[in-house]
């Protein structure tokens, strides 16, 4: 059955169309692979019965000649998306026992387009983290391993969508949803050697996605190829009156944007992304990406995004501030964990003290502090002003270029346990992804090479607001030219 698992979404769709395989056969192959790779700890709630029911229903639809954009394709869902009657935890003890009575808009869109649910995927608690080590379900293991020294080390998949990225890389899901607030789709995409796409803010509805930082959170796909990413995003996106920030604009045919032609496009290379202490291999990968796009006929242009270095500290005010507000709802009254207490205040404090993990407590406290009386202007408004400057930098740059090329992350995957006692060191993982998040822009990570330790490295392409098409177009050419065909040693 392993050849079935080798099909990407586009290939599996073709095989399903040609009746060479049924969705039930494909789904069963994935369920077997999931079980065999359970040690990676990707799936926190596998849903094999639901998967087979959905696959059977899909085969019946196909037999009737009805076929959605992802008809019969088995996918995994980050455990941040509410799924009706299936436990949804946000990887937090505080949501113990929570079973939503409603379905998120993005997952409802996927099911309407024929996708099949394999199960819910591990993540960092409330999507806060860059290594998937902050989970009440335990860490996720990256299916990749170092060559040579440290070959036996268990590596992180990145985060926060670490279960999603590891599952797709390990071939135990054909695609997976992720969410990205400051890099949580793109950085794990880079660490796991797959494609991770964060669309423009507003492209996908946030309704039914457990909130972290509402002005930043966006859903997107993790897939093996750029074409799969375009197909899956098309099936997730769309306007939704349930999310007032969801964009009321048509969803383009993203797959049609993959023309394979970047001749005449201008690609910006921001000089400020050459950060202190960046490893040579990241610089070399970036140079190679520039060369590949130039050979394909694009024009590479050096640009300046002067406020880049202030993006990360601004993000670590804005995101915790919004999180402290969003997470106020976990009070032990309406759902999830309740700890004892003689009075309501005791009960709230005990519930939240026991229910939230370390990183969540850290961010809720930072957020509470920067929003507290006397500090609001100095921190929160200051950060929002810096956010405006970062957005202006991009607006000016996009006056002269069509897309921007940068590295995705400043390193390859590190070992589980590394950097855990140093929050700021962990935050620096997102140094290249946070600026476009603050600006709301679409950005994708494409696997482009291997580090000296034999681990995948991604390059990031950033586009204009709501111009995912150009991002996909350039990403498709970069993917083809880079020819990344390496496979992880772990997984199916």
């Amino acid at each position, binding site marked *: 059955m392993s050849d079935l698992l080798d099909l990407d979404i586009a290939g599996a769709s073709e095989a399903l169309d040609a009746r060479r395989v049924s969705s039930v056969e494909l789904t069963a192959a994935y369920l077997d692979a999931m079980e065999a790779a359970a040690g990676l700890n990707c799936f926190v709630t596998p849903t094999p019965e639901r998967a087979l029911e959905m696959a059977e229903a899909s085969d019946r639809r196909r037999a009737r000649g009805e076929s959605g954009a992802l008809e019969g394709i088995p996918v995994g869902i980050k455990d941040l998306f509410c799924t009706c009657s299936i436990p949804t935890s946000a990887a937090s003890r505080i949501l113990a026992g929570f079973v939503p*009575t409603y379905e998120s808009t993005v997952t409802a869109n996927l099911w309407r387009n024929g996708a099949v649910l394999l199960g819910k995927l591990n993540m960092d608690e409330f999507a806060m983290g860059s290594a998937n080590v902050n989970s009440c379900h335990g860490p996720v293991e990256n299916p990749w391993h170092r060559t040579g020294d440290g070959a036996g080390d268990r590596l992180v998949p990145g985060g926060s969508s670490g279960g999603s990225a590891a599952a797709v890389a390990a071939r135990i899901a054909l695609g997976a949803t992720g969410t990205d607030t400051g890099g949580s789709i793109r950085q794990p995409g880079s660490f796991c050697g797959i494609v991770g796409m964060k669309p423009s*803010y507003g492209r996908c509805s946030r309704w039914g996605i457990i909130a972290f930082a509402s002005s930043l959170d966006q859903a997107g796909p993790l897939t093996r190829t750029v074409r799969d990413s375009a197909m899956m995003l098309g099936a997730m996106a769309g306007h939704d009156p349930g999310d007032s920030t969801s964009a009321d604009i048509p969803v383009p045919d993203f797959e049609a944007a993959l023309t394979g032609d970047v001749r005449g496009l201008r690609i910006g290379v921001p000089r400020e992304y050459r950060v202190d202490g960046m490893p040579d291999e990241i610089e070399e990968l970036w140079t190679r990406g520039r060369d590949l796009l130039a050979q394909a006929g694009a024009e590479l242009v050096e640009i300046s995004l002067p406020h880049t270095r202030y993006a990360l500290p601004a993000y670590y005010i804005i995101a915790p501030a919004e999180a402290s507000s969003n997470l106020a709802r976990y009070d032990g009254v309406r759902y999830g964990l309740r700890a004892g207490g003689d009075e309501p205040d005791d009960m709230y404090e005990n519930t939240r003290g026991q229910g939230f993990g370390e990183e969540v407590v850290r961010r809720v406290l930072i957020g509470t502090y920067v929003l507290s009386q006397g500090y609001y202007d100095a921190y929160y408004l200051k950060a929002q002003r810096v956010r405006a400057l970062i957005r202006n930098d991009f607006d000016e740059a996009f006056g002269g270029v069509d897309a921007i090329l940068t590295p995705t992350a400043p390193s390859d995957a590190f070992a589980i346990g590394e950097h855990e006692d140093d*929050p700021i060191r962990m935050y620096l993982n997102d140094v290249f992804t946070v600026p476009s998040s603050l600006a709301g822009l679409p950005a994708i990570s494409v696997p482009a090479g291997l580090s000296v330790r034999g681990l995948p490295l991604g390059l990031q392409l950033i586009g204009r607001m709501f111009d995912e098409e150009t991002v996909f177009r350039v990403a498709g050419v970069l993917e083809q030219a880079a020819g990344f065909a390496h496979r992880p040693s772990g997984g199916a």
Partner: protein
Amino acid sequence: MSLDRETVRQTALLARIRLDEDRLERMVGELNGILAWIDQLNEVDTSSVAPLASVTGHALPTRADSVTDGNDAEAVLTNAPDRVGGYFAVPKVVE
């Protein structure tokens, strides 16, 4: 700006998170590290810049003021850790 132990204790109280003394001590160190790092924002002149709260450039939509959802108490209560009849139950409030 540096946070003392009392300020962190007060912030945790505002956030309704019970921290034992060990955890509180650890947080004092970590939060001070993070805030010191954030302070580099003071290098940026933002005197002539308006704060950016929304990136879409779209105005918030309006709709007719009509009921579109609701009247489903059972679904709302189904995850309640404790309930009495059709209500959420909480510890007694003693005034």
